[in-house]
């Protein structure tokens, strides 16, 4: 009998999950479930379980859709955000949450990410960002830091990496944030904000892949990789209280950009109201 949270919101017949020991994806999936539970249990929030749809693409991250006990759809590689766009536009009352990976949403699906952000389609995108293609055995992804090693970058990665949260901001996302697997409480709170945000929201959650990324790049164990996050990823309040020189090489955990642009499906509904033929 697992914990109440897991029992209520995960398909326990399908657990334990397939991820490697120490993989951060399990923690991020729990963060998503915890954020949803806290919103459902809060009588002041209008979040209904049956209105939640989990959409995923392909890759390690995307197996999460099958474990979470909501309406769930596991789509094709890169296309989760495009499927989600169809679902949300067809039925705007749904809370559509996309669970994707760094490769899924910023390489093969990068175009859909920037255009959903630009449209301000009311989706919540949670990127499980582990800096590597794990499912296929450790090839470099758009977020593998330059110089790092992968099976397809045996002599070091020449590509420069994306910062997914900044990419979404640059594309006009009305909500863009960063989380990680060490700062669990902060990340749950960020995901809660993202789900409640009316327009497009993206949370780039730094996962850890000890098996393929960590081992190849001498990052140590999962524990070592979490320690790195503890020291280098800094929650908002502390980040802004740090002197400028101490911030060098560190990244903010929190909301990076926020705007209340009109949401796409609401704007379209206005258009339909104006042009619908009287019968």
């Amino acid at each position, binding site marked *: 009998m697992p914990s109440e949270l897991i029992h209520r919101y995960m398909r326990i017949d399908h657990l334990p999950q397939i991820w490697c020991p120490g993989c951060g994806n399990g923690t991020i999936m729990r963060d998503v479930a915890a954020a949803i539970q806290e919103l459902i249990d809060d009588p002041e929030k209008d979040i209904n379980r049956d209105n939640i749809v989990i959409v995923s693409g392909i890759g390690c991250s995307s197996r999460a859709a099958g474990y979470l006990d909501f309406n769930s759809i596991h789509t094709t590689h890169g296309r989760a955000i495009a499927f989600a766009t169809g679902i949300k536009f067809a039925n705007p009352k749904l809370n559509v949450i996309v669970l994707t990976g760094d490769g899924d949403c910023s390489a093969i699906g990068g175009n859909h990410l920037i255009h959903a952000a630009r449209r301000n389609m009311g989706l919540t995108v949670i990127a499980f960002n582990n800096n590597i293609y794990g499912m296929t055995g450790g090839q470099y992804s758009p977020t593998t830091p330059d110089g790092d090693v992968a099976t397809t970058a045996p002599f070091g990665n020449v590509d420069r990496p994306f910062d997914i949260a900044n990419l979404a901001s640059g594309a006009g996302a009305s909500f863009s944030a960063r989380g990680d*697997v060490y700062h669990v409480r902060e990340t749950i709170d960020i995901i809660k904000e993202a789900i409640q945000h009316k327009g497009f929201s993206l949370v780039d959650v730094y996962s850890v892949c000890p098996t393929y990324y960590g081992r190849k790049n001498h990052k140590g164990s999962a524990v070592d990789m*979490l320690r790195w996050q503890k020291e280098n990823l800094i929650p908002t309040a502390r980040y802004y209280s740090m002197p400028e020189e101490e911030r060098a090489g560190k990244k903010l955990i929190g909301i990076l950009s926020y705007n209340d642009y009109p949401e796409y499906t609401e704007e379209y509904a206005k258009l339909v109201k104006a042009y619908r033929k009287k019968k």
Partner: protein
Amino acid sequence: MIGRKQLIIEDAWCKGCGICVAFCPKQALELRDGKVHLKDDGQCITCGLCEMRCPDYAIYLVNMEE
């Protein structure tokens, strides 16, 4: 309030990654034969940090009956 919560370990789900052991503020946990165990010295303060960081949902707190 100690005693109102209890730590449960779901042995079959533990993959032995050691995250809960490393980040337990009281060093109350240890790995034995690749699985997490509560040490016998009663240091656990049921803070729940292990549950929050366990990627496999193998360790968690339950509320005890009053």
